[in-house]
C-alpha cells in the first residue's frame, strides 16, 4: 500500500478545438494540500472534474488509491462516494434544507440508518459553523453559508480527498473570509485537498504545493514561497504579479 490518495497520469481532455487538459499528471498523498491556480479558461476546472470522473477524460488514467477509475466497467458511483467535490457555483439541492442536503447521500449512498445519518450531517454542519442554518433552504441562506453547507455535504461522507473548484470565486469578498476560515480548519485537521483557487494569502498559509496551470497544462509547481519569491517561468511571474496586486487592492 502506498499513501497515494489520488493520482492522474497523462490525462487529456479536448473540447472540439480547445485542449482543456493536455497530458497532466499529478500525485496527491494523504494529508496533502495542493492548490492549482492560473488564468481563467485554462482548463483547471475541467481537470478537477476529470479527477472526480464527472467529466470523462479522453485518455490517461485516474487512480483513487489503488483503483483505476478510467478502466471501463469501474463502479464510478462507488468511487465518487469516496471523493468530496465542492463546486464554484455551489449547486446545493434546492428542494432540501441544509440538513437535507448533507443527509441525502449519507442515507441513500452510504445507506446509513436514519439516526446516524442525521447525527453525522449535524456534526458536519457544526464543523463548518452553519448550525444555525440547519433547517433553512438554500434560497434563505447567504452565499457564504451556502458554500459552507456545500463543504459540509462533501466532508460528511468522510471522503479520502476533497476537490474544491474555486470555492470562493462566486462570493463577495466579505463572504469569502468565512469560507476560507472553514477551509483553514479543514487544513488543520489534515484533510487531503486539491483546491483550485486564487486566494493567495490562503494558499501561502496552508498549501504545501502550488501548481501553476495555463493553457491546459501544468507550467510550474513549487512551494508557496517559491511562487511568491521567484517563479521560474515568465508566465507564472506575470500572473503572480497581477494577482498579488489585485489582492493588495482588496
Amino acid at each position, binding site marked *: 500500500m502506498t499513501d497515494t490518495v489520488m493520482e492522474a497520469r497523462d490525462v487529456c481532455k479536448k473540447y472540439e478545438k480547445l485542449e482543456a487538459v493536455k497530458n497532466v499528471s499529478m500525485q496527491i498523498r494523504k494529508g496533502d494540500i495542493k492548490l492549482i491556480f492560473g488564468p481563467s479558461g485554462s482548463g483547471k476546472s475541467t481537470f478537477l472534474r476529470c479527477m*472526480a470522473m*464527472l467529466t470523462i477524460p479522453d485518455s490517461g488514467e485516474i487512480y483513487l488509491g489503488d483503483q483505476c477509475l478510467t478502466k471501463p466497467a469501474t463502479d464510478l*458511483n*462507488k468511487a*465518487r*462516494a*469516496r*471523493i468530496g*467535490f465542492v*463546486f464554484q*457555483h455551489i*449547486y*446545493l*439541492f*434546492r*428542494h432540501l434544507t441544509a440538513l437535507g442536503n448533507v443527509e*441525502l*447521500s449519507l442515507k*441513500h*449512498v*452510504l445507506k446509513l440508518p436514519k439516526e446516524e445519518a442525521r447525527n453525522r450531517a449535524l456534526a458536519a454542519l457544526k464543523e463548518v459553523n452553519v448550525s444555525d442554518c440547519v433547517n433553512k*433552504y*438554500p*434560497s*434563505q441562506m447567504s452565499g457564504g453559508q451556502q458554500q459552507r453547507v456545500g463543504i459540509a*455535504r*462533501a466532508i460528511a*461522507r468522510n471522503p479520502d480527498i476533497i476537490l474544491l473548484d474555486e470555492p470562493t470565486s462566486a462570493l463577495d469578498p466579505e463572504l469569502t473570509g468565512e469560507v476560507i476560515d472553514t477551509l483553514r480548519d479543514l487544513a488543520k485537521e489534515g484533510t487531503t485537498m486539491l483546491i483550485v483557487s486564487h486566494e493567495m494569502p490562503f494558499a501561502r498559509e496552508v498549501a504545501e504545493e502550488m501548481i501553476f496551470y495555463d493553457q491546459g497544462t501544468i507550467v510550474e509547481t513549487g512551494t508557496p514561497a517559491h511562487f511568491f519569491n521567484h517563479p521560474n517561468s515568465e508566465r507564472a511571474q506575470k500572473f503572480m504579479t497581477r494577482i498579488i496586486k489585485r489582492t493588495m487592492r482588496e
Partner: protein
Amino acid sequence: MDVWQTLIYLLEGLPLTFSISIIAFISGIAIGLPLAFIRVYEKDVSFVVDAYEKVFRGVPELVLMLLFCFGLGYYFAVPFANPFFTAAFVLGLRSGANQSQIFRGAIRGIGDEQLIAAQSGGFSKWQAIWHVMVPQVLTYSTPGLGSEYALLIKDSAYAWVIGVLEIMKRAELLSVQTSNLVIPFSITLLIYVAITFPIAQWLDRWGNKKRKKMGL
C-alpha cells in the same frame, strides 16, 4: 323537473367526473415523468418517447375511447369493456404524452447542475434523478400541471360516448327526457367552470410558494 332537481341529478355525476380525471392525472404523471427523463437523458431510445407523444397528442380522444372500449373491449372484455376504466385509461395515456412535454421543459429549466452535484456525491444517474430531480421537476411544473388537470376534467366529458354516467352523460339524458337543451347544458357549463379552475389555481398558488422557497 325543476332547476334544483336538475342540479342535484347532474351533481351526482361529480364523483365519476372527478375519479376519471384524477386517475388519468396520476397515470399521466406516472407515464410522463419517466418519458421526460428518458427523452432528455437517454438519447438512444428517445425516439420511442417521440413516437408515443406524437400518437397520443395527435389522435382525438374520441377515437381512442371508441377503439378501446368497443374495439379492444370486444376481444378483452376485462378490462376494456368497462367504460369507466377505459375512459380513465385513455385519458391517462393522453395525459402522459402532455405531461412528458411539461416535465421535459422543467428538466431543461432546472439544468444539469443538480444532477452533477448529486453524482459527485456518489449517486447513480437514475438515483440522482429520483432523489434530486423528480421533487424539483414536480414543483417546477405546477403551472403546467394545473392546466393539464383542468384539461382532464374537461375531457372526462368524452366518457359520455362510451356510456359512463358522469356529468355530461347525465346532461344528455336529461335533455332527451325533458326535451330541454338549455337548462341541463347551462347548468352543466356552470358546474364545469366551478370545478375546473379552483383546482388549477390552487395548484398554481401552492407551486408558486414552493418554487419561491426553492429559488426557482
